[in-house]
């Protein structure tokens, strides 16, 4: 389908890249449909682009690329809300922000995605180990992904 975006113009995405957030995201409760779009530089980063609002898009990434010990305990209600049939379909993404020279990840409010039915939800961790602005990498002009670990 075609999606209008403020950042990339009109883009075409496959139906299987569409995610459904029944509750939206915190602060954005009304936008429930997003497309997960690959960026030009491999698989580290994606754009989560709202289908409903051209200007709403987030950079997201797999937090385990940066933090091997990061783990999201899946609560019963999340399991039921996202209609999981098997935990193996669970994928975790975090929303990234630019803070000064750094790209940060919101590890306190990760996105849980059910890869089987592509329903997703932003959850809030009870553990205080992670922050909303966990530094991921420094944005420099040369090869930012060289420091991805």
């Amino acid at each position, binding site marked *: 389908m075609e999606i209008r975006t403020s*950042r*990339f113009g009109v*883009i075409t995405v496959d139906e299987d890249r569409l995610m459904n957030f029944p509750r939206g*995201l*915190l*602060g*954005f409760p009304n936008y429930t449909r997003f497309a997960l*779009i*690959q*960026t*030009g*530089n491999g698989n*580290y*980063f994606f*754009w989560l682009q709202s289908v409903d609002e051209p*200007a*709403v*898009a*987030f*950079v997201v990434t797999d937090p385990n690329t940066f933090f091997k010990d990061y783990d999201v305990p899946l*609560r*019963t*209600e999340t399991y*039921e809300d996202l209609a999981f049939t098997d935990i193996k379909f669970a994928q975790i993404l975090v*929303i*990234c*922000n*630019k803070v000064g020279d750094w*790209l940060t990840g*919101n590890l*306190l*409010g990760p996105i849980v995605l059910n890869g089987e039915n592509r329903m997703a939800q*932003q959850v*809030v961790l*009870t553990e205080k180990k992670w922050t*909303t*602005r966990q530094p991921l990498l420094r*944005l*420099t*002009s040369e090869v*930012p*992904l060289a420091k991805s670990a």
Partner: protein
Amino acid sequence: MLVLSRQRDETIMIGDNIEVTVVDIRGDKVRLGINAPKEISVHRKEVYDAIRRENKAAAQVKPEDLSGFGKIDSKQDREPKK
């Protein structure tokens, strides 16, 4: 807003199955105990607010903020770069 006075060890009910008990009061700090069904998530409000704020800020990120890696994968990007 409904305002109720409670003493230590007293409880309020929210609906039929959520209990909030005043466990301890010390100075300006109140400790609450919450009994709720598993499907009700309970969080400190400031955590929610922080995540909401961070989402709003993250929605302002533009591809050009990202040293080039925020571009979407068009055919042109797949051409080998010299």
